[in-house]
């Protein structure tokens, strides 16, 4: 068990990186608390797997240090870091039985056979594999194989962190849910740090206590699922988390109000008490790393933008006029496409709420309306912990 610290990690797969685009990881400073359940969330190619491999030691970072409980392990091999990793596709030693697979890491560490057997049976019991121990591992189903991969990490009592690299990719949908619950259960039971890499927000938000969102080789936000939903630090997080994603509209700022398309939009701080200390000083705000993001994609459009989630848009007679273009009934609520001039927005309307047929007007919830500059949240100031 260990606290894992990443200090100024930069990585490039090229031998002589020159431009910003050559860096797979631009600059990462992160601390993973001992015993946390983390999700590392981001689109394909954002550097999640690279970061994971740097923690496990499969990849040496070009710059920066990896520390386990303060001790520098940057130069150590995976085997000496005592980590476990479960890969996207199940890795099984075909020649061995399930028992042999689970025992493999212990035998490689020259543990006495009696102790190996006892430990393997214990772990097999936790993973519901006890009656399959003598089966050939290659004959099992994909989810059982993934359990074995996980089991090879769990058998080692000295393991510092278990990392999962999109482990449910090849698992049947109904088994995904079962396996995810099993992971949560094991996390509660063992308290071992778990880092779960995924590009699926549902997986990330249901598994993790803390979600680390990555985009284009940088960490854009670290927070609880609720924080990511209610207070996205970057428009990318707003787009990426939530379905449908956050509405992002061009705006200007006039005093305490934002102005969108000639309409003044009130912005209030959060009701939560923790937002009081938010942005309590320029020194604090300056500490937050603001990696530059490429102008392509969701984030990084220059200028000021207004962000409001579809959940916080409602019909209101004292709002501004819009036009309803489409209504999607998705069951418990409806997703309504609206437009004002050339600006397209989405809003979520409850089952029992009515959609006005004539002259619809809407308003944004001031407590959940944010202003972003160059993609980054500027108002109201976010709470930092």
């Amino acid at each position, binding site marked *: 068990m260990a606290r894992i610290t990443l200090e100024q990690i930069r990585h490039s797969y090229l031998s002589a990186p020159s431009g910003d685009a050559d860096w797979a990881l631009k600059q990462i400073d992160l601390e993973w608390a001992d015993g946390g359940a983390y999700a590392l969330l981001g689109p394909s190619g954002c550097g999640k797997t690279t970061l994971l491999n740097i923690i496990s030691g499969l990849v040496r970072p070009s710059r920066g240090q990896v520390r386990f409980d303060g001790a520098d392990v940057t130069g150590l091999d995976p085997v000496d870091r005592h*980590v476990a990793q479960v*890969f996207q*596709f199940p890795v099984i*030693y*075909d*020649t061995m039985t399930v028992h042999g697979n689970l025992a493999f*890491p212990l035998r490689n560490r020259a543990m006495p056979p009696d102790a190996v057997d006892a430990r393997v049976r214990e772990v097999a019991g936790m993973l519901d594999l006890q009656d399959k121990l003598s089966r050939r591992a290659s004959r099992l189903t994909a989810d059982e194989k993934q359990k074995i991969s996980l089991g090879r990490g769990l058998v080692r009592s000295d393991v510092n962190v278990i990392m999962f690299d999109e482990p449910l990719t090849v698992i049947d949908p109904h088994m995904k849910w079962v396996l995810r619950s099993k992971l949560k259960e094991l996390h509660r039971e063992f308290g071992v740090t778990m880092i779960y890499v995924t590009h699926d927000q549902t997986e990330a938000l249901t598994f993790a206590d803390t979600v680390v969102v990555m985009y284009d080789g940088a960490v854009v936000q670290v927070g609880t699922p609720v924080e990511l939903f209610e207070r996205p630090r970057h428009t990318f997080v707003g787009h990426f988390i939530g379905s449908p994603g956050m509405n992002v509209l061009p705006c200007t700022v006039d005093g305490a109000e934002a102005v969108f398309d000639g309409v003044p939009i009130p912005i209030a701080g959060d009701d939560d008490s923790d937002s009081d200390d938010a942005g309590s000083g320029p020194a604090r705000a300056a500490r937050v790393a603001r990696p530059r993001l490429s102008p392509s994609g969701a984030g990084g459009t220059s200028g000021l933008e207004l962000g409001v989630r579809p959940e916080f848009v409602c019909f209101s007679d004292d709002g501004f006029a819009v036009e309803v273009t489409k209504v999607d009934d998705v069951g418990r609520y409806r997703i309504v496409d609206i437009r004002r001039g050339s600006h397209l927005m989405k809003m979520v309307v409850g089952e029992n709420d009515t959609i006005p047929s004539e002259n619809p007007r809407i308003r944004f919830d001031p407590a959940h309306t944010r202003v972003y500059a160059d993609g980054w949240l500027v108002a109201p100031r976010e709470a930092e912990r």
Partner: protein
Amino acid sequence: MSTRTVNHRAWWLVAPVVVLVAFNALIPMMTVVNYSFQETFGDNVFFFEGFKWYEQVLTSERFHASFVRQIIFTGVILAIEIPLGVAIALTMPRRGPWVSVCLVLMALPLLIPWNVVGAMWNIFALPEIGLLGRTVNAMGIAYNFTQDPASAWITTVVMDVWHWTSLVVLLAYAGLCSIPDAYYQAAKIDGASAWAVFRHIELPKMKRVLTIAILLRFMDSFMIYTEPFVLTGGGPGNTTTFLSIDLVKAALGQFDLGPAAAMSLVYFLIVLLVCYVFFTAVMRGEER
């Protein structure tokens, strides 16, 4: 189930293939079967002889001797080429600019016609003028493949290893390249030794291609003709007379059509039997 129409019209669709196979395999083979039961003294006059030639072949000292030579030769080259091929494949780079260089170098011997290989090694190994022959003799080792059976055997084996190890290398390399990186990464995390990686990851993943390599090398070496024919002509004496060479000597040299046909069929059945046994054994191992 609804009504099911049964008719045999589909047979017409496979008829062209049946005809083709009949012409290029069945009919030629049946003529051999035909010869193997008959005796002729020329003028297209044949007498039925029953199993006489089969009995003669199976009890003949000469056939036994070439059969044993053949088994030893095939066993020796398999024992050398398979491990050597795997070893070379393991040392080849998996990515980078050297991959294509290695692949071309490996493919070169396979592109040379068989009789040219025989001729090359013949000249290369000649004790008076060949580079190899002169060098070995100059080192004080008596070496003359045209007169000394041991020299002839070693030369034949080395020539085959030089010619065909590449095939094993390429197949094994293809098997190695198909192993996802995650296996090596998992092995690193599990603390596996280099031997354990070979034993539990690389060897099992190469099993299928190695099965094919062994089968191909078995069949090819069991039927080897051209290279030893050009190199040694089956000599000195009969020491490198393998089954094919013996067969040709019988069929063409002595024009004993009947015994040669019987021998061909025995030979064919042996190859078929060994391949079948080997293949089923491997497949059964896979299902376990």
